[in-house]
Structure formats: structure tokens, C-alpha cells
């Protein structure tokens, strides 16, 4: 009895396919997959260029992070960024998407204008806002003084709460366009007859929003929420430019950067980046599952 071994037949098509996919496999394999595995693996060792040897330390890098008060403060800071940024982006983004959806003329141009902040380098955005927030000559102080809301110019970043809020605003200014585009695409897929029927039944605008619009754009909302959450968890550029490594506004990613590239504790930085990746994946998964479940019972 001859053993039949089925070798995958590599025909002409398959060879062409492999050849075309090879650059993808090489680049992603070498620069993403291997480094990712290496991050997971190396986070179990002590790798610090300033110290000799790389002994196996098990989960000690992780347990050290849990005990580190600076790291814990950075987690809280990042959580605050996430809440503020996601609320601003979702509320503002929904309002902008509803507006754009109602617009008959010039929608394409308004959309281009709305998308603009997303297209600009985040660093330049942060610099533009840094000047607006300037304590002595900034636009924000000027406008608030002019309106009589404050009596004296404020040094905004002297206060942790305002610092966190202002950094979140800059981040939300950049990321809101994504929410707008996702929600606008969802809104455009709602059939107009539904609104006509609701209007004939005497539903108010608010009722139409709650009973028709929100349930029907829920999947889009889930995508928008998870995107804004993941980007806010990864907030780095805005906080770094506006307030440097200051402990008041130090996000988790700034902490990773400081740990790895300023304190040269590579393994600690890797362990923290693994934790951040897990958190951002988990949070976005929770949103998606929850919104899908709620729409099913609707």
C-alpha cells in the first residue's frame, strides 16, 4: 500500500501569488511579527544596556511595574485622556455627522474642511495649540479675558486638571474627523423612508434620533468608539510637545518612552508596552461586543 502524501501543488498561479506576497511577508515578518514576539519574550528578561548580562527574571518586570507609583499615575492620566477625548470626539463627531448628513449643498467641501485637522502632522497641531494656550499672549486667555470669564491670564499647565483637558482637546481636534467620517457613512445607510414614517406618526426630532438614528448607527458607533479609545490610549505626541515628560500629564506611552529610551530600561519599557497593547485591544473589544449585544435586544 503506497502512502499517499498530499503535497500542496505549487502551480504557476501559486508561484506568482507567492512571489507577489513575498515582499509583504518579508516586511511584516521582519519588522512587525518578529519584533512583536521578541517583545513578548524579552519582557521576561532583564535587558538594560547599563547593566551586564540579560538574566531571566520571569514576570518580575511586570510585577515591578505594578508597584511603580509613577507608572500607576501614568495609567490614571491615560484613563482621564481616554474619557475626555472619547466624549469630546463622540459628542462632537455625532453632531458634525448629523449636520453634514442634513446638508444638501457643499457637503463635499465641508467634509474636506472637517477632515483637515486629521491630515496635519500631530506635532504641528500641538505647536499651533501651544501658542493658543500661551499664558501671556495666547488666544485662549485673550478670548476669555475679553468675554469677562476670567480676570487674570491663566498659566494653563500649572493646573493638572486644565492641562489634561487642554491636551485632550488638541487630541480630539485631530481625531474627531475619523469619528465624523465613520458616523456619516453609517447615517447615509439609513433609508429615508424610516424618517418619513416616523414623522407621519408624529415622532419628535429627539424621538427620531433615539429610536431610529442611534440604534441604526450603533455598529458604526462601536467602530468609532473603539478607534477613538485605541488612539487615546496611545496618546503621545500632543502631551509630549505641550508639556514634555511632566508627571502631571505623562501618559502611559510617554512612560514607555522615558523608561526605554531615557532611563535605558528596555525590558521594563517592553513589559509596559505589552500591557498597554493588551489594554487597548481589550477595551476596544468590550465596546464592540457590548454595542452589538445592545443592538440585538433593541
Amino acid at each position, binding site marked *: 500500500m503506497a502512502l499517499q502524501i498530499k503535497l500542496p501543488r505549487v502551480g504557476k498561479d501559486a508561484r506568482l501569488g507567492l512571489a507577489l506576497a513575498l515582499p509583504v511577508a518579508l516586511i511584516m515578518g521582519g519588522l512587525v511579527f518578529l519584533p512583536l514576539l521578541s517583545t513578548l519574550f524579552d519582557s521576561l528578561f532583564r535587558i538594560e544596556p547599563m547593566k551586564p548580562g540579560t538574566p531571566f527574571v520571569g514576570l518580575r518586570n511586570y510585577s515591578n511595574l505594578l508597584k511603580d507609583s509613577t507608572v500607576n499615575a501614568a495609567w490614571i492620566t491615560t484613563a482621564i485622556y481616554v474619557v475626555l477625548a472619547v466624549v469630546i470626539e463622540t459628542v462632537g463627531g455625532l453632531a458634525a455627522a448629523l449636520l453634514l448628513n442634513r446638508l444638501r449643498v457643499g457637503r463635499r467641501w465641508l467634509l474636506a*474642511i472637517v477632515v483637515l485637522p486629521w491630515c496635519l502632522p500631530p506635532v504641528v497641531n500641538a505647536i499651533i495649540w501651544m501658542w493658543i494656550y500661551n499664558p501671556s499672549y495666547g488666544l485662549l486667555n485673550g478670548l476669555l479675558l475679553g468675554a469677562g470669564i476670567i480676570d487674570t491670564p491663566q498659566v494653563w499647565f500649572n493646573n493638572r486638571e486644565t492641562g489634561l483637558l487642554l491636551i485632550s482637546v488638541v487630541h480630539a481636534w485631530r481625531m474627531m474627523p475619523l469619528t465624523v467620517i465613520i458616523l456619516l457613512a453609517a447615517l447615509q445607510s439609513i433609508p429615508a423612508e424610516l424618517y418619513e414614517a416616523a414623522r407621519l406618526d408624529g415622532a419628535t426630532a429627539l424621538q427620531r434620533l433615539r429610536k431610529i438614528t442611534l440604534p441604526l448607527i450603533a455598529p458604526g458607533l462601536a467602530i468609532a468608539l473603539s478607534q477613538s479609545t485605541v488612539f487615546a490610549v496611545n496618546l503621545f505626541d500632543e502631551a509630549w510637545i505641550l508639556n514634555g515628560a511632566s508627571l502631571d500629564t505623562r501618559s502611559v506611552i510617554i512612560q514607555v518612552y522615558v523608561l526605554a529610551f531615557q532611563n535605558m530600561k528596555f525590558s521594563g519599557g517592553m513589559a509596559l508596552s505589552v500591557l498597554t497593547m493588551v489594554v487597548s485591544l481589550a477595551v476596544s473589544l468590550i465596546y464592540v461586543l457590548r454595542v452589538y449585544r445592545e443592538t440585538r435586544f433593541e
Partner: protein
Amino acid sequence: MTRRFKHLPGQIGLWLGVALLVLWSVGPVYWSFVTSITPPNALVSNSLHLWPEAATWQHYAKLFGANSTSQGNEVASVWPQFSRAFANSLITSLAATALVVIIAAFGAWAFVRLQFPGRDVLFVLVVATLAIPAYTVMIPLYRLMISLGLIDTYTGVTLIYVSAFLPLALWLMRSVYQAMPLSLEEAAWLDGASKLRAFVQVVLPLAGPGLVACGILTFLSAWGQFMVPLVFSPTLATKPLTVLIPEFVTRNYVDYGLMNAAGIVAIAPPLLLVMFLNRYLVSGLMAGAGK
């Protein structure tokens, strides 16, 4: 008449909303531009002007000039650094864009139309990396680049950009090819063309808008990158504008006129893309968001 009257409050609300949205989106950029053409002494006055009383190009002259003054003192011109960083930004962004578009154009087609071992696994793995934040691989990548001698080289930075932006481009191009009828290619096969030839001559020209969208998204992402070059481009050999401009701050005296002028120059390429190619940009973002 009464009908128009009934809609008037709604119309006013609508246009008020539009005005607010435009102000929110463009206002800060406009303010930066106004700052960049305001003379230094007017910048530190207490009154706000929506347009400078005496507009000046002196901040731009400082950027582009051979020599410059700051607070009356002759200081070294920033032009050599600035021009170098601008070129670095342009070179790495364009190289990454070209590579991503070419690799995605052919690769995504192979993922859609050709059967080969490992196809589905590879595609799922690559798209899954969209959910992985870039910094997670930063530290091993840093050690890898050091061992390869690719720190502070165009090759190193460009390759990292390609690995970061290729998954989205593959995802977009796959949906473009999936939307095309197979019959287009079959007609070319009947004429005796090979699969590759049919793709290049028939499918690729039709995929133009998708490729443009991929190119724009990649260019914008690469142009705005900060953390990658902060780590991988320590000197002016490859340092881009995004890393150079914030360094103007760390001096003792912050020259806001100069910073805003530099920011406006750095904004110019993305601004031009949005103005002239916004149709492709929005369609690309919409397709990318649908994941």
C-alpha cells in the same frame, strides 16, 4: 411662503452649525498663519488682532534666509537645518508611499485573485497588526536597526514606515479588487494574456482611484510621524520636520513667530493634498473605517 417661513429657524441653525464646524476645524490653522505674519513686537502686545496691522514675512525670511537676527542679535540661520529636515521628510514620506502603493497594488491582487499556500493566514495576520500599536515593537526594532546599522538611515526609517502603513493599504486595495468583476480579466485571458499581464493591463488602470487613496493616506501618515523618527532619526542625516520644529522650543527663548511659520510650511503639503485630492482621501478613509 409659510412653508419657507417654517423652515427658517432650522435653516439658521444648520448654517450656524456649519459656521461653528468651519471655525473649529480651520480656526486654529488660521490663527497660526496670522501669527506667522505678525511682527514680533505685535505678538507680545495685549490686544488680539484677527489680521495683523502690519503684516510681515520676516519670520519666513528667518526660515529661508542665509542669516537671521533674533532680538537684535545676529544668530545662526536655521535654513541649513530647516531645508535638510524638509528634504528628509519629503524623501522618507515619498519613498514609503511609493513602496507601499506598489507592494499593496500587487500584493492585494494576489490575495484576492490567486490561490497560494498560506494566503489566508498571511492576510489575516497582516490585517490584525492594524490593531497593534506601533510602539509595542519599537524597542526590539531599535535593537534590530542598531545591529543592521540602519539607525539614522533613509532605508531604516522608510522600511519602518512601510511596515506600519502597508496593512491599511492592503486592506483598501483588497476591497477595491473585490469590487471589480472577474469578467474583465477573463476577457484578457481569452485573448491569450497571462494572469499577470491581464492584471497590469486591464485591472491596474481601473484601480487608479484606490491607489491614489492609498498613496494619500500613506503620505499623510508618514509626513506626520513623530515618535518613530524621534527614536530612529537622531541626527540631521534623516531627521524630519516633525522632530526638528519642536527643537526650536527648547532654546531659552521661544520664537513663536518662527515656530508658526515653520508649522505653516510643514502643513503646506498635506493642505495641498486635502485641497486637490479630498475626494480620494475621504473615500479612502471611509473604506478604511469600514473595517
